[in-house]
């Protein structure tokens, strides 16, 4: 309701202003700017369709429109025996298992800390908060993971990032919005706080779990550095690390030996790199228009009350 009156009063504000050169300038610059955000993705798609013939006639290039689109790179990357599938499997496992555990640990801790009457709340909050100011750093963590025996395992991508303190505090603030009366009536009915959490609080705060879950999911999807330094086994590398190897270090030979061996006219490396970017970015390009509003909401909530 409030939103509506705000917009209509904004509209009123526009009605008094005549359209000036500034409006044209503004609309056009916004369009140009949007264009610069999209064009690299279009070029990468165009370049992924370059084939052997075109690389011979035009040399090494990146283009928006290939003259004769060739899907050979996708046959290599998505064909039988491609390393991309294993990378994707690791990424998806990481995302699903990781986000589930993230929400479990973050949610329970946030709920406990959301109780204003909790004795020792201040000390607990300080313990969490201090980790946002100071950290042991790269090497002590690196050695700790070796000590715990999680180096070079799948779990090194999950356990060290279980709770993001910032997001935990955002979640705690979400929980504080829930009226106490709901919990009190359940308590009187004899439900334990644990049961209240799982059967009343979680369903009630589905929206905030979705928001924070999305934060964690995108974090897992985009992470590469932890896997790159703590995992040496190539079979455990997520798709981001695979992509880094292909795109930035030009080690594209091991992607799909089975199919590569059978191709006489190999596609240019630029095309293969581009196709690798497309294959590993497409999922997020498809979902981001739908998830971005959750991020915006979470961002605004987080910034207003930290």
């Amino acid at each position, binding site marked *: 309701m409030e939103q509506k009156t*705000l917009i209509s009063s*904004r509209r*009123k504000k526009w009605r008094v202003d005549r359209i000036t050169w*500034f409006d044209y300038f*503004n*609309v056009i610059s*916004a369009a140009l*700017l*949007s264009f*610069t*955000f*999209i064009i*690299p993705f279009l*070029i*990468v798609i165009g*370049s992924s369709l370059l084939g052997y013939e075109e690389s011979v006639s035009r*040399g090494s*290039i*990146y283009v928006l429109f290939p003259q004769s689109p060739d899907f050979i790179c996708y046959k290599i990357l998505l064909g039988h025996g491609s390393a991309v599938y294993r990378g994707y499997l690791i990424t998806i496992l990481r995302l699903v298992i990781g986000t589930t555990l993230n929400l479990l*640990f973050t949610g*329970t*801790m946030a*709920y*406990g800390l959301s*109780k204003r*009457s909790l*004795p020792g709340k201040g000390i607990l909050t300080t*313990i969490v908060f201090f*980790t946002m*100011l*100071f*950290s*042991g*750093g*790269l*090497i*002590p*963590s690196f050695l*700790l993971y070796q*000590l715990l025996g999680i180096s070079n395992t799948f779990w090194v991508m999950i356990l*060290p990032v279980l*709770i993001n303190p910032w997001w935990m505090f955002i979640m705690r603030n979400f929980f504080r919005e829930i009226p106490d009366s709901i919990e009190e009536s359940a308590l009187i009915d004899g439900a*334990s*706080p*644990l049961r209240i*959490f799982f059967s009343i609080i979680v369903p009630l705060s589905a929206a905030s779990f979705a928001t924070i879950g999305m934060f964690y999911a995108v974090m897992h*999807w*985009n*992470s590469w550095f932890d896997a790159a330094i703590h995992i040496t086994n190539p079979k455990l590398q997520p798709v981001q690390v695979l992509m*880094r190897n292909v*795109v930035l270090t030009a080690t594209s030979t091991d992607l799909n030996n089975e199919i590569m061996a059978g191709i006489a006219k190999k596609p240019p490396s630029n095309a293969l*790199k581009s196709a690798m*970017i497309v294959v*590993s970015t497409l999922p997020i*390009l498809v979902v*981001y228009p739908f998830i*971005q509003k959750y*991020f*915006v909401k979470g*961002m605004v909530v987080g910034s207003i009350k930290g």
Partner: protein
Amino acid sequence: MAEKSLLLPKKGRKWSAFKRHIPYYLLILPGLIWFIIFRYLPMYGVSFAFKDVAPFEPVQDMLKAPSVGFRHFKTFINSYYFKILMKNTLEISLLRLAFGFPLPLIFALMLNELRNVRYKKVVQTISYLPHFISWVVVAGLVTMMVTTDGGVINNILKAMGRKEIYFLGDVRYFRSVLIISGIWKELGWNTIIYLAAITGIDTQLYEAAIVDGCGRFRRAIHITLPGIANIIIILLIFSIGGLLNAGFEQIMLLYSPPVYDVADIIDTYVYRKGIIEMNYSFSTAVGLFKSAIAMVLIVLANVTAKLFGREGLW
């Protein structure tokens, strides 16, 4: 239940409050244990900075190694790299701040002046896109744009009859690539806070200004900008608090030995010394040096924010 506890002596009341909250402590416990293992144990591990530990040794033995005091810190501060690293870290951060800070503000003001709400939404959504992409992808896209191996910009230069430029390997251009790609990635996203703050401004102020005959430009300068001044100052203060974070992931992916002179920052040096050269003690010392200064900067930022009468982080 509450009435009963009021009848008890003070100590008993505390105890009963604690007892009543036991289930909540149980909910907090897994998270607390996690923080102790994964955040506080590494803090204990900074003791490596004051020892001499050999790689491939069991970590338990490393902890027993004799102390060498501040030797690694002295070595670092007296080394040839110290000045270069500090200079690069601060210069890159300040450049990011100088260009990356005002642009989202300007973009937010421009978005706010778009008349068509639908069009504005579309532009916003598109501008958020790069934020959701990993640095690996962005580095790939940057390489595609600037490489000498068929890169888009060099193709244009060639078509114009100009010489190719080796952007990623030339000390004169490397930092521009960093700053511009960094802005490209976060420009749209960084407008969110400003736009949220703008919607919080009382519309009556605008109406009064219109009655007084204020044009659109003057309303933006005299109402919108002061209305979000709080947020601007807070963001500025806290970006100064993060001055030692010059963009580790991005630089890691894009830099190479020819540009170390302008691109090597404390974080990348810690990584090379520690993970690549396995010089654990020295690398931990350099990392600790950075974390300690960074903490002081954040605390100072918070104090400054409070001096300005704003709400700090804590």
